[in-house]
């Protein structure tokens, strides 16, 4: 079912007036600011009778109708109203979508019998919307496109049913009913195609060839035609009303001390746990707002690694966040809001002191660590497709789901630990590109007894500058048995700098 609020902006303005009859009698326009001065965005009936039209410059309109009253238009308010209307329209179907700027699409599949038939359903919708003071046109059709077309360009309260009759029913509508861009409508008009029936009469391949590089449905009449007849699906974004769970405490006496605040937070966490449990949800992000007497607002955020509603855990995490809070003259209102929730079923509670013995869960442990040390401190390495050792792993959040990964081929030994930044070493070698013999690192000389290499790793030319040098890695072991991973950056005479430098990059176990 498509609902078209033909005069949404004007209706909203009219509903806001105290004396509606007087408002109807007065010529009135809503104006929008444009690059060429104010233009008329919407008009009421008296304004239309005065000879002005929508899209006209206000100066021109004033010349025609000097008594024209104006007010600025409010597109954002219209959209918000439409969102609320879309939610309200779910009384006629399980889900609805906004059809900006002034329509609503309701999926009424299989619900007509609840209202006593399709005609009764449309009559009900018309009556209820008219009682709300909205001038609407409604239509019912098998596809959203067809319903839209009938609501905008068909008879009042039109009902189209699926079947061979649908073609004939839609053929008489103008091409504007296809929801095309003005440029495409103009083009079709110049081609002499005025009605949908004219388009249907044309060979499909010819239309496909003419609009072959138009991907967007609003620019491709063939695509719109298929959507109209239900031969191509048309995804829509349903409107879903989500209320964030919210609990608050208004305090008789403003509090200035931490112990009292902790108690209030504990109470709020209890309330929130009850609220979330009733909804079968757990919080991932919590916002604690503290309103101060002197008109300031303090907000503390908390993000959890896993959905939870355990009040003790929440209180413990907030305890870190509330350190160093400036209460000023006191806090008079505390509000806890779960900005992000996830489904969380009921779980068996730990009996007696089992929790004490069993310790915390992994998610709780990670929450505590992240709150104190920061989100970036607790991470897990995951392999990444790169030959460069420092790029071959990335650090991800610890509880993130792991992508399916193929175990890498362990062709080359890799060290247990990599230094954050390779440390320069001084190396003695027999030949400039031969095996190293001895090196100095951190004020000590190491005699190399055994070595394996080189393992050559070329720079990633698609990412780095052309002067980046290749690396020749050596696994080495010194006389004491210490094992290292060293590399020579570049080759002598590779034209990318002077003599190659040596670095120590990793430590083997």
């Amino acid at each position, binding site marked *: 079912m498509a609902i078209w609020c033909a005069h949404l902006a004007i209706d909203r303005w009219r509903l806001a007036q105290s004396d509606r009859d007087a408002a109807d009698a007065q010529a009135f326009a809503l104006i929008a600011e444009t690059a060429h001065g104010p233009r008329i965005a919407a008009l009421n009936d008296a304004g239309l009778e005065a000879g002005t039209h929508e899209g006209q410059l206000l100066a021109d309109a004033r010349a025609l109708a000097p008594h024209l009253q104006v007010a600025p238009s409010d597109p954002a308010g219209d959209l918000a109203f439409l969102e609320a209307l879309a939610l309200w329209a779910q009384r006629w179907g399980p889900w609805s979508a906004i059809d900006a700027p002034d329509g609503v699409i309701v999926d009424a599949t299989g619900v007509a019998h609840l209202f006593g038939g399709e005609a009764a359903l449309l009559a009900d919708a018309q009556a209820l919307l008219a009682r709300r003071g909205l001038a609407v046109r409604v239509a019912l059709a098998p596809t959203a496109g067809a319903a839209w077309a009938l609501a905008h360009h068909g008879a009042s309260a039109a009902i189209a049913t699926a079947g061979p009759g649908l073609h004939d029913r839609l053929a008489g509508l103008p091409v504007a009913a296809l929801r095309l861009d003005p440029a495409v409508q103009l083009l079709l008009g110049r081609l002499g195609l005025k009605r949908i029936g004219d388009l249907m009469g044309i060979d499909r391949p010819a239309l496909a060839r003419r609009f072959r590089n138009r991907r967007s449905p609003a620019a491709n009449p063939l695509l719109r035609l298929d959507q109209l007849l239900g031969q191509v699906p048309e995804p829509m974004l349903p409107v879903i009303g989500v209320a964030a769970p919210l609990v608050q405490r208004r305090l008789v006496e403003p509090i200035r001390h931490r112990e009292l605040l902790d108690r209030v937070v504990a109470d709020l966490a209890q309330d929130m746990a009850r609220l979330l449990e009733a909804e079968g949800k757990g919080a991932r992000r919590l916002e604690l707002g503290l309103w101060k007497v002197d008109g300031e607002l303090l907000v503390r955020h908390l993000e959890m690694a896993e959905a939870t509603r355990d009040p003790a855990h929440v209180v413990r995490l907030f305890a870190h966040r509330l350190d160093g809070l400036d209460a000023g003259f006191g806090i008079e209102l505390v509000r806890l809001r779960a900005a992000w929730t996830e489904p969380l079923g009921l779980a068996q509670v730990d009996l007696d002191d089992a929790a004490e013995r069993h310790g915390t*869960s992994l998610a709780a442990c990670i929450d505590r*660590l992240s709150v104190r*040390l920061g989100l970036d401190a607790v991470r897990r390495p995951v392999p990444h497709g790169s030959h460069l050792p420092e790029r071959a792993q990335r650090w991800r959040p610890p509880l993130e789901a792991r992508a399916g990964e193929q175990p890498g081929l362990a062709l080359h030994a890799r060290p247990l*630990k*990599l230094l954050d930044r390779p440390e320069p070493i001084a190396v003695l070698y027999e030949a400039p590109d031969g095996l190293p013999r001895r090196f100095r690192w951190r004020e000590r000389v190491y005699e190399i007894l055994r070595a394996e290499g080189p393992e050559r790793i070329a720079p990633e030319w698609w990412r780095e500058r052309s002067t980046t040098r290749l690396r020749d890695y050596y696994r080495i072991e010194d006389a004491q*048995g210490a094992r290292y991973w060293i590399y020579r950056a570049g080759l002598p005479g590779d034209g990318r700098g002077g003599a190659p430098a040596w670095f120590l990059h990793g*430590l*083997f176990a």
Partner: protein
Amino acid sequence: MPEPSAVSSVEDLPALVDLAPGVTRGLGSVTHGARWRPGLTTGCRHTELFASATQASGAGLALALARDALRSARPDPVADTPDERGWLWVQDKAAQRLSGRPCYAGLPRELAHRLIHVAAQTPEDALFAIEEGLRCRDLAFVIGEIAGNPRALDFTASRRLSLAAERHGVPLWLVRIDARRDLGSARMRWEVDSAPSTVPRWNPQAPGQPAWRADLFRSHTFPPGQWTLRDDGQRLLADSPDALEQPLSTRAGRPPHLGDLVRASRHRPLAAGAVGS
């Protein structure tokens, strides 16, 4: 005073008793007086390894010991999936700077995907993270790396870690990088150095499987000794060239040098999870 051999289980031990010289307590009669060897279920939850910052031998042996403990642990009879619990590796900033961060490709394959790494800024934060990790039931073990002798890691902090590890049964291997042997409550304290690796079969010039020279200088359960340890991927192997199997009687006259070591906590009323006495 009970004879050591008469002690049948840990619970039978009196709360505070002076054991015979050379006899340590903590495990049942099976391991009394026996030297430590790989694959032994030690029951030791808190181990310290002293290592140099210029080697990864401390972390390498800690991982090898942790794998050894995992392998020798009795599997849960009702578990139908393999143990895939994570493990925590906590490093403070100095340890990261001196000896680097873990490298995914260089970790043992069965442990690499289970690692959770904590990069702490200060030793205090690192100790907090280690303790939180020890309290977590979903972790297999915790490895800590702390450089030097920070003021935060005093005897009290060390004792907290021991208590947390014993109460929740999560073992801790604390690697002390470039540190003095200060006062600590770890049940076993090792000095680790790297040893020449095995000779690979196909390229004798190349380094082979890593080996470590491990010196158990303080232990509550085992006599001190030295081993050369290496992990061949299947199990931890030890060959101890200098330490022959010494019978208990030969050391009986020598009083045990407890020194900076603390008695097992489970016989103290303060201790968590202590037996009733």
